[in-house]
């Protein structure tokens, strides 16, 4: 067993033992807050994590999931209970031993990235190694490898604030990967990102996970994310773990009303919409681009058709490769003549509706927002796959 947490309690602003007794005698979190002014952060949490597993802790905000994560490396000192990691009870470690243990065992990724603004991307990625006292050349090399892993080659001399949110979190991830520890603690790492970037990052993480030998504890408030990433999922409420299980158990065997409501709630809202299944367009054309540019972009990205944007990146239509080639053969230069109309989708349209739209056409479907800006594209196979998944 990689991680074994037993009967963990965390009481904020209280005596500790007294509140734990109250919890044991069945008093609720609210009762205790009212009577003693103390806040229950974690209430008798026990769980085990296997080596190499992605273990997701899920709950609404205030459910204690971030606190629970931080008890694992004692960034939050538990009031009672024990945490065993590789058969070492970390509650027995003194300050120095704990620091050494953190260097050796944990990498951590934070919700708001926690990057050092005055350090470059490379220096940020090096941070953990620097703390370990590794010499400069060696840590530079390892940090570069980590940056490569997350796809940030070429950005190493930039400062974090020059990067987008998704890229910043890649730096955070690289910093945690560079230290080469066997446990990765991830505290809602993707919650602050846009939906599309979030999806990207989840894929990136799963991709990395295939190639690295790590146990990951992942915190989220998003059931979709939990189901996508987690081998097993723990659901928390009011500081308590109300259920631990794999996807199947969580979705079909809710152990109490809270979980049932959670899952059902999410399922109900899980009528997938265009926004959920859309992709980023790999390339777009601009109205003023010529036919040759069109051909080049399509060839380069292996596309059969490409969307055209006008002024202010407003959506104009689509051109297909056949039309482009034909026009070129007739020695024409102008792109606008061959722009075609295709059905369009709104971000909130359901997959069912999309199906009827996309069934008869051979091009992707553009998703436009209220300002006619291109938010994403939908490919037929995606609609069908998701439709099939929903009807299982």
């Amino acid at each position, binding site marked *: 067993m990689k991680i074994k947490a037993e009967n963990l309690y965390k009481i904020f602003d209280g005596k500790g033992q007294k509140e734990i007794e109250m919890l044991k005698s069945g008093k609720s979190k609210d009762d205790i807050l009212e009577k003693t002014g103390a806040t229950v952060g974690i209430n008798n949490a026990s769980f085990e994590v296997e080596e190499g597993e992605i273990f997701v802790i899920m709950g609404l905000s205030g459910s204690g999931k971030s606190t629970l994560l931080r008890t694992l490396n004692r960034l939050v000192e538990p009031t009672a209970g024990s945490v065993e990691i590789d058969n070492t009870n970390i509650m027995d470690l003194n300050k120095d031993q704990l620091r050494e243990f953190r260097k050796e065992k944990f990498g951590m990724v934070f919700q*708001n990235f926690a990057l050092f603004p005055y350090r470059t991307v490379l220096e940020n990625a090096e941070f953990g190694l620097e703390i370990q006292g590794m010499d400069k050349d060696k840590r530079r090399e390892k940090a570069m490898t980590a940056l490569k892993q997350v796809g940030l080659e070429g950005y190493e001399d930039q400062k974090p604030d020059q990067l987008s949110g998704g890229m910043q979190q890649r730096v955070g991830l690289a910093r945690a990967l560079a230290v080469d520890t066997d446990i990765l603690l991830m505290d809602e790492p993707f919650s602050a990102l846009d939906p599309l970037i979030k999806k990207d990052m989840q894929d990136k993480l799963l991709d990395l996970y295939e190639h690295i030998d790590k146990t990951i504890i992942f915190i989220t408030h998003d059931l979709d994310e939990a189901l996508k990433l987690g081998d097993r999922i723990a659901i928390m409420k009011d500081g308590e773990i109300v259920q631990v299980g794999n996807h199947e158990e969580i979705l079909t065997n809710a152990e109490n009303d809270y979980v049932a409501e959670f899952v059902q709630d999410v399922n109900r809202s899980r009528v997938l919409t265009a926004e959920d299944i859309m992709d980023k367009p790999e390339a777009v054309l601009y109205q003023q681009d010529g036919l040759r540019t069109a051909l080049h972009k399509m060839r380069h990205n292996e596309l059969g058709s490409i969307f055209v944007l006008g002024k202010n990146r407003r959506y104009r239509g689509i051109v297909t490769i056949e039309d482009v080639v034909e026009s070129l053969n007739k020695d024409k230069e102008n792109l606008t003549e061959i722009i075609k109309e295709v059905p369009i989708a709104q971000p909130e349209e359901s997959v069912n509706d999309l199906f009827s739209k996309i069934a008869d056409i051979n091009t992707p479907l553009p998703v436009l927002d209220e300002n006619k800006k291109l938010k994403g594209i939908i490919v037929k196979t995606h609609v069908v796959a998701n439709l099939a998944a929903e009807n299982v």
Partner: protein
Amino acid sequence: MVIIINSIIELFTTKIPLGNWVENLVNFLINNFSGPLNTFSSLIESIVGGVEVVLAFPHPLVLIAIFAAAAWKLKGKRLAVFVALGLGLVLNIEMWDPLVITLASIITSVLVALVIGIPVGIIKAHNKWVDLITRPILDFMQTIPPFVYLIPALMFFGLGNVSGVIATVVFAIAPPIRLTYLGIKQVDEELEEAGHAFGANWWQILFKIELPGAMPSIMMGINQCIMLSLSMVVIAAMIGAGGLGKPVLRSLNVVDIGLGFEAGLGVVIIAMVLDRMFGRDS
């Protein structure tokens, strides 16, 4: 009953001998700590003297060139021109020697203020008790008129540059303490948490996270410290400190408008030069 009322009235009408207490304390310190005080005094004296020797060693034009080059490196061509012209003017109006003395005392005062102030600011940011205790002391030091501590400074360190430096340090030390404290307090807690998560110890957190994060604020504190030191030039001259303050005082005594203006202009120029060189980029 009457006795009690009488004694209460007496209590309120008797003056508390606050002045006497302070006087006694100062006398006590002078009588019992003359050894350490003398050592401290000669240390300051030698720093001021050393800096002065270094500054006076090259030809003034060489020093001006060095300053201009430093300004160029720090902030660019325009400031370099300004520095060269400004200091050249000081040389021309024959205020160069007092300027060097002033510069030596300022550098010493600022060094002492920073060597004490920045660590105090760091401790203040980490220790609730130090924070509580230093708060009223800093308020006191920032608001009490400097003339009040000229006399004890004189008694401790005698007439001359050392008293001037000490009075200047008392006057100018609050901003580096306060702004170091503030800078560290403003460092994002998540950054410190990241440090702990990767196993950083206290010193690593301080030097790799807190101080770099607090740097803009600390730089502002240093700038403020320099400016306040310069504003003490004339007051320090009253207790025998040399430099540009001296001709200003003399001009006041003999009503020499021209001399006063020239020396005053020297102070303004060196203040602007130092402020632009070590101030924040705008």
